[in-house]
C-alpha cells in the first residue's frame, strides 16, 4: 500500500475537538477518585469494564500475530489479491472480538461510532469515529 500523500499546502496541524469515541478510553478510568464515593450502577457498565481488559500476552494474540505475518506471505507470493484487502479481511473477521481491542468493543457496546452517533456528536465538526466504515476505507486514509 503505497500511500504518499503530500500534505496540502497551507495545511495547519490542529488538535481535533474531541468526540466521545476519541476519549471514551480516557473518560472511563480517569479523573479524581473520591474516597467515599459509590460507583453508580449503570446498565451496561459491567460489560464496559470487562471489555476494557485486553490481554496482550494471550494465545489469541499470538495466533492473531502469526496470522498477520502469514497473510503477508501469501499476498507477496500470489499477488492476486492486494495486501490491503487481505489485511482488511483479517481485521474484520480474523481478529476475534477478544483481540479486537477494548475501545472498539466499548464503542460497540455503547452503540457509538457505529453510524448512529451523528445526533449525539452533532456539535463536533470534522473528525469522526473509528468505525467499521472508516476501517474499511483505511486505504484512503493517511491524509489525516
Amino acid at each position, binding site marked *: *500500500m503505497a*500511500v504518499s*500523500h503530500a*500534505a496540502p499546502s497551507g495545511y495547519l*496541524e*490542529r*488538535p*481535533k*475537538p*474531541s468526540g*466521545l469515541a*476519541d*476519549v471514551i*478510553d*480516557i*473518560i472511563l*478510568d*480517569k*479523573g*479524581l*477518585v*473520591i*474516597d*467515599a*464515593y*459509590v*460507583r*453508580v*450502577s*449503570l*446498565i*451496561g*457498565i459491567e460489560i*464496559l469494564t470487562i471489555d476494557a481488559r*485486553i490481554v496482550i500476552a494471550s*494465545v489469541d*494474540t*499470538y*495466533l*492473531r*500475530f*502469526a496470522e*498477520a*505475518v*502469514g497473510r*503477508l*506471505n501469501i499476498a507477496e507470493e500470489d499477488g492476486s489479491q492486494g*495486501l*490491503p484487502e487481505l*489485511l482488511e479481511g*483479517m*481485521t474484520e473477521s480474523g*481478529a476475534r472480538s477478544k483481540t*479486537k*481491542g477494548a*475501545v*472498539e468493543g466499548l464503542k460497540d457496546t*455503547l*452503540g457509538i461510532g457505529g453510524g448512529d452517533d451523528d445526533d449525539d456528536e452533532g456539535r463536533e465538526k470534522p473528525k469522526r469515529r473509528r468505525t467499521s466504515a472508516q476501517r474499511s476505507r*483505511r486505504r484512503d486514509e493517511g491524509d489525516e
Partner: protein
Amino acid sequence: MSEVHVYGIVRAGDGRPVEDPNVRRVVHREVAALVSDIDRGGLLASSVLRTHWRVLEEAASNATVLPVRFGTVMADDRAVVEQYLEPLHDELASGLAEMDGKVQLTLKGTYREDALMAGIVARSRAIDRLRSEVEKLPEAAAYYKRIELGQLVAAEVEATRERDTQHVLQQLEPLAITVRAEAQSTLKAAFNLAFLVDRSRVDKFSGAVATLRRDVRDWIDLRYVGPLPPYSFTGDRVDPGAAAWA
C-alpha cells in the same frame, strides 16, 4: 431524594461554567462541584457517559476544571460538601491553581498493520524462517509453531512500540509540561500519550505534531485530540508530576 452524580471540580469564583439547567454547582468556600441529580434505576451507561463528557468539555472551555472519575455518585449535596469538598478543600484549590491555563492534548498512534508486519519480517530472520515452516504444515499440525511465531512477533511489536514511543517523546516532551503514557487499547496501537500543555504553547506543540506526522506516515496513523480537560493528570494524588511512563 435522589443521589447526585459528580462531574468535576471548578473554582467557586468562576461562576457557572455549564449552561445545562440540570447541572448545578455545590459550592464550598473556594471550590465547587458540578453535579446533577441522578435516579439510579435503569440508567444507561451510554447516556450518563455522554453527559459526563459534554459537561466536562463545556466546563473546560469556560473555566479550569478537574474531572472526577466517571460514574461517581454521592448521597446528596451535603455529602458532597462533608465528605469531599470540605476535607479536601485545600488540595482541590491547589489542584485547580496548578491546572490553570493548561490543557490535555492526546496523541494516539496506530500502526498500519501491513507496514508493521512487513518491517518485522524483514528485520527478523527467525520470524521469517518460522513463518515459512508454519506455512508448509497443515493448520492443525502447526498450532504450537504458530503460537511460537506469534510470540516472536509480539515481542518485535513491543520493541517497535518502545522505539516509536521514544521517538515521539523526544520530539514532543520538551514542549509539554508533563506526559503520561496511557494503556494501549488495541493490538495495533503504537502509543497513546497524554500531554499536559500550556495553552500558549498549543500551536507550537501542534507544529511539532505535524512534523512527526510526516516522519511516521508510512507506518503509523496519528490521531491528535484536544484540547481536553486534564483527565489524565488529575487521577493520582499520590505522585503528582511524575511521568507515568517508564
